[in-house]
């Protein structure tokens, strides 16, 4: 069991004036036994961060500690962690048994114990029957399981996952995801999981680290990430469909016009002239405007998904998405009135892009 601390961790590529900073000043603590996801778009530095924790890449500045001991100058195999790679990285010239046991053999674990752990790991992942096969004779899902078994057999303090599900098809991905969650509950080892898939991050994690352009955007529980996004980036990255984020001007005290339209929302305790307001599509409501009633806008697109429909409304100056239950009766061109009575209104500073506190309700 292990606590991982990152203190002012930085990563530069290149030297001198040509140096490019890939990771900026990361500081956070991953608690013992937690499952933490590093979430962000590609190129945000999440994989680099994972590689730095693993020791596969050197850090340029700062410190990494595991259980209070500094590890950033240790070789990867001295850090007591296991790594599950995106492409599984199974050794093609070894059978499954040797693949799972390789790390143990390199650590001079005795033969009987190695075999016991290999079989135990294989049993947990239901791949006992393929122990004698070479990786090329396995399906994608089985390879994924072998990669997981290899990590488990080592019984490390820390598990690191680099987008381990991204090579699986959608159905298998969902299934493996829930198995991964069960496995973590069973083993209880500290796990760091890199993904660009917000759904994976939300379902699996105790905490989520949201990163963008090498910087930490927010570190919090899935609840906090979803309900109290710290920046406009987090607000727009997490949640599907994306949060409506529109520049809004104050029309009277505590009331703002969303995106310069006639649609207004009340925000108590906020004084700024200009803000960016965020409203989640599933929290807003929509109804057809009565004759003679002032409409917020016109329906532009209706996308039925079965249990819900996403309706895009043209406010005149901007587009606004609302998720309504079932198949919507609205059709393109209908004049509609938006409602945000039940919605949480997220307020952000238009220049710093950070959440304005005090405006939460």
């Amino acid at each position, binding site marked *: 069991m292990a606590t991982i601390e990152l203190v002012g961790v930085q990563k530069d590529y290149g030297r001198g004036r040509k140096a490019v900073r890939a990771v900026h000043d990361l500081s956070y603590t991953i608690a013992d036994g937690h499952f933490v996801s590093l979430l962000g778009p590609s190129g945000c530095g999440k994989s680099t961060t994972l590689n730095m924790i693993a020791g596969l890449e050197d850090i340029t500045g700062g410190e990494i500690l595991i259980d209070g001991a500094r590890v950033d100058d240790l070789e990867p195999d001295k850090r007591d962690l296991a790594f599950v790679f995106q492409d599984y990285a199974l050794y093609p010239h070894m059978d499954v048994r040797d693949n799972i046991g390789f790390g143990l053999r390199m*650590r001079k674990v005795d033969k009987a114990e190695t075999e016991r752990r290999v079989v135990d790991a294989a049993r947990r992942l239901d791949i006992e029957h393929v122990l004698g096969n070479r990786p090329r004779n396995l399906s994608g899902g089985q390879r994924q399981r072998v990669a997981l078994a290899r990590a488990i057999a080592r019984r490390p303090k820390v598990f690191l996952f680099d987008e381990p599900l991204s090579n699986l098809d959608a159905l298998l991905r969902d299934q493996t995801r829930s198995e991964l969650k069960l496995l973590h509950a069973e083993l209880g080892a500290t796990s760091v999981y890199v993904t660009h898939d917000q759904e994976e991050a939300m379902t699996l994690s105790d905490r989520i680290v949201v990163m963008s352009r090498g910087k930490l955007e927010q570190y919090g529980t899935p609840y906090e990430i979803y309900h109290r996004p710290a920046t406009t980036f987090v607000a727009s990255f997490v949640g599907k469909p994306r949060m409506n984020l529109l520049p809004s001007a104050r029309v009277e005290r505590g009331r703002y016009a969303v995106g310069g339209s006639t649609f207004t929302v009340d925000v108590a305790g906020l004084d700024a002239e200009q803000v960016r307001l965020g409203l989640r599509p599933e929290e807003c409501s929509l109804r057809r405007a009565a004759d003679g009633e002032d409409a917020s806008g016109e329906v532009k697109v209706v996308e039925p998904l079965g249990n819900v429909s996403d309706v895009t409304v043209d406010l005149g100056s901007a587009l606004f998405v609302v998720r309504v239950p079932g198949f919507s009766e609205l059709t393109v061109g209908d004049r509609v009135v938006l409602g945000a009575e039940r919605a949480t209104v997220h307020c952000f500073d238009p220049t710093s892009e950070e959440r304005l506190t005090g405006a939460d309700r």
Partner: protein
Amino acid sequence: MSRARTRLARTVVHRVLVALLLVYLLAPFAWMLLYSLYPATALQTLTPDLDPSQIRLDSYAALLSDPSFLTPMANSAVVGLATTVLCMVLGSGCAYVIARYRFRGRSVLLLGMLTVQAVPVIVLAVPLFILLRAFGQYDTLLGLVITYTAFILPLVVWMMVGFFEELPPSLERAAVVDGCNRLQIMTRIAVPLAAPGLAAAAVLAFITAWSDFFLAKVLTITSATTLPVRTAAFQGLFAMDYTSAATAGVITAAPVLLLALVAQKWIIRGLVEGAVKG
């Protein structure tokens, strides 16, 4: 219809050209094989008598029991194998480093490997002769092995870099996490995975060393003479003994042909890939 006919015509022309090329390339070898099997008198007529009952293996038996032929044969085998082993040990380490590490002068080094291949051997023959004699390695097997290694190593490295670069880097990262040091990564992961390519490089090294005539002729005189040099000597010593000369030719060529057939696919891949990726 006419398009199908054009295609057919093209195929026919192609096949005929390939057949002609094969005859051009194989006829001398076939002729040599016939000479080694039939009595010369049966072939040196206007209507060669190819009756299978005429086939004699006497010349093979005679050569393979003649010490003056067996010694050069053993020399060639020793030189070929020693050169191959040396090239593989030095070459795999060198190629792995070039393939996996970025360092100053890396591409210059790789290009240099190819450039030295363009230097004609004849330019170096006399300096090599003087050098080997000065070090007391003239007419020794060691002298030949060192010389051949120097010539073949760059080509072998060039080939192997391509094979090592093909291996996914994540495998080596997995090995690092599993506790391998750099040498273990190479010996336990990279070399076994690149094995087919390395085998092809080994075959190429062996064929080159085994079949070299020119350097062996210049750098040996009696005790370290190799098979190609000995085979050529039939011309002068027994002006009329075509059968023995042909038999020696077949014995020299057989291992080369066999190895080339087995490894041709990989040799071509190695050369092409090295060229493209370098």
